[in-house]
């Protein structure tokens, strides 16, 4: 006998063995491998997370923007001060060799504490500045030193003097001390009084800069992402064209067990009538284009299409329908959708802007309880495997924005969508496309 013939015999015997499993085994396996529909709980959680994430981003974004604006404003102010200081400095220098005017920080502080505004300050400063003051070097702050820099960036002799005569050295700073005073005054104007006049004339450049700042801020707000929520109650239908929505009063053909009240010799399905539909979700949008008249919008939505048809009830085949006369059966379809759209502002009104919107969406079927019809027997039955799980829709609408000056403007207007792909690959919905029309109500959070 061959080596290992025992093992070979065992292998051979064991491979011949067959055992029939019980019926319960397959049922258990089937139960476990059944494709699980995404739970609504998860869907809600997803929407909640998306909402929280969007809200968090919005808050974070606004906080950062506020900080940035503050810094930008400060920088612009400083720049104004510097520009103005330089101008005044030059002007003063070119003027007659009048005695330099100066004012100490202490004086400024006193005036500030007294609540004296710039015009008063400027009024009072003029005589004070006309005197030739002796300024202690220690009073000159680094900021003032910066102001003391000449246009070509070199420091005047004051520093050298400072180095040579440290401690209590006092010196005259003709011309430059005027600059300090002007600088300080400009600061007072911008920070304390809020007025844009400085000295005895208008500071046009500052006014221009403030206006520019405001515009910049506005542009900044317009360019950022905004978040919102939308809900579209309406009517949904399915048919070979969009007007399938208009078949609510179509006659009913009833089918049961091969009999038909439709055209003789053929089983005609009961028409699928339009019924209530709903879409709702969250979105993010961003104005684009030169004049901000275009807005790009992307989001996540839930869409519910409902269609009615009449069936003769047979409780053994259609659960939850009473036995007896004809009953309305509501066929539900639930989709999760990712819509992308562009919105165009038709008018230039800022108070009541009117928009035209158009876009496309890709959707995934997440549940359906719709009936299919067996054309041989006339029985309706459930078979979701026949439905297309993916739907591609196009949509359009118009909307008017209300409360546009408020923090949460509301966009309201008609909305229509049409599915490019048929509802099902075969059966009752083979040539049917979803159509939906409703009233779009969107609320956008904006700063």
């Amino acid at each position: 006998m061959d080596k290992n013939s025992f093992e070979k015999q065992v292998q051979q015997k064991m491979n011949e063995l067959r055992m029939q499993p019980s019926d319960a085994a397959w049922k258990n396996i089937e139960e476990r491998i059944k494709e699980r529909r995404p739970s609504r709980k998860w869907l809600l959680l997803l929407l909640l997370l998306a909402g929280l994430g969007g809200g968090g981003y919005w808050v974070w974004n606004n906080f950062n923007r506020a900080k940035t604006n503050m810094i930008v404003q400060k920088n612009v102010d400083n720049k104004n001060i510097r520009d103005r200081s330089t101008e005044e400095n030059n002007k003063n220098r070119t003027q007659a060799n009048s005695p330099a005017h100066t004012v100490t920080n202490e004086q400024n502080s006193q005036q500030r504490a007294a609540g004296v505004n710039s015009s008063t300050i400027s009024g009072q400063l003029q005589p004070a500045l006309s005197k030739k003051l002796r300024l202690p070097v220690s009073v000159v702050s680094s900021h003032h030193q910066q102001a003391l820099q000449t246009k070509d960036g070199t420091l005047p002799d004051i520093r050298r003097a400072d180095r040579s005569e440290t401690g209590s050295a006092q010196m005259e700073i003709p011309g430059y001390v005027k600059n300090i005073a002007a600088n300080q005054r400009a600061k007072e104007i911008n920070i304390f009084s809020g007025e844009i006049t400085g000295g005895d004339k208008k500071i046009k450049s500052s006014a221009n800069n403030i206006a520019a700042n405001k515009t910049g801020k506005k542009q900044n707000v317009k360019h950022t992402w905004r978040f919102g929520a939308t809900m579209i109650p309406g009517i949904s239908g399915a048919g070979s064209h969009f007007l399938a929505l208009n078949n609510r009063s179509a006659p009913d053909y009833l089918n049961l067990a091969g009999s038909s009240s439709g055209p003789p010799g053929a089983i005609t399905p009961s028409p699928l009538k339009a019924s209530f539909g709903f879409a709702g979700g969250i979105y993010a949008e961003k104005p684009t284009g030169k004049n901000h008249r275009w807005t790009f919008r992307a989001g996540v939505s839930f869409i519910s299409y409902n269609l009615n048809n009449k069936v003769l009830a047979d409780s053994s085949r259609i659960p939850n329908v009473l036995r007896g006369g004809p009953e309305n059966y509501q066929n539900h379809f639930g989709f999760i959708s990712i819509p992308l759209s562009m919105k165009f502002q038709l008018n230039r009104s800022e108070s009541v802007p009117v928009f035209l919107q158009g876009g496309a969406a890709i959707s995934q079927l997440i549940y359906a309880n719709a009936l299919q019809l067996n054309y041989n027997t006339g029985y309706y039955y459930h078979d979701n495997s026949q439905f297309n799980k993916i739907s591609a829709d196009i949509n359009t609408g118009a909307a008017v924005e209300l409360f546009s000056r408020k923090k949460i403007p509301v966009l309201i207007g008609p909305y229509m969508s049409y599915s490019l792909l048929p509802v099902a690959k075969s059966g009752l919905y083979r040539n049917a496309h979803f159509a939906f029309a409703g009233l779009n109500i969107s609320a956008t959070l904006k700063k």
Partner: protein
Amino acid sequence: MWEARTAGDSPNPPANNYFSRCNDLPLPVVNNQDLNMDHKRLVNDCIKRVPAAQRELYELFAPIMLAICYRYTKSLADAEDVLQEGFVKVFKYIHTYKFDGELGGWIRSIMVNSALNFLKTSKRYQYDLSFSEMTLHPVSADDPAIQLEAKQLSELIRQLPTGFQTIFNLHAVEGYSHVEIAAMLGISDGTSRSQYARARALLIEWIEKFSSNEHTVQYGQK
């Protein structure tokens, strides 16, 4: 490693065995090319989660797989549990099957792994499965002719202590080497060899006794 075994004296090609739902049914004659095409279609449909295809795959392989599971366990209920677990894995991971081997072999390896997992995790088997390090026991040179029927032999294998039973099944029936078995069970290959030698000796002794009617196997006792 396990590979498709011939059906011995059976007039049908070995792969045809998959089409039989039990030993009593006649086996249809299908050539291998058709069979492969059929398996390919079946696998593709199962990847698409077509319920009918899943059912067909189950009905095709469940009888032989249940027999395998039965050899590793001590009761039919446990064997069905392993079968269910195995088929759930088959349907879950069927997209990973690359048609580089026989479909039956791929499913079989999943069943064996499921059986081992079951033995490791089930409290009833944990004690029996504890392998103590043993001195190397030489494999007996005896190669007696087995006069028993497949079912009788299967019952005898199931009478072995669980450790012996598992290693015997893995080495003698599935064709795994002792190194592979050692890795699968987390033991040394020496222990695997020793346990196998003892299991083999015990089984040969029982077969001889059974053949001479000195030993009676109680079917379905455990």
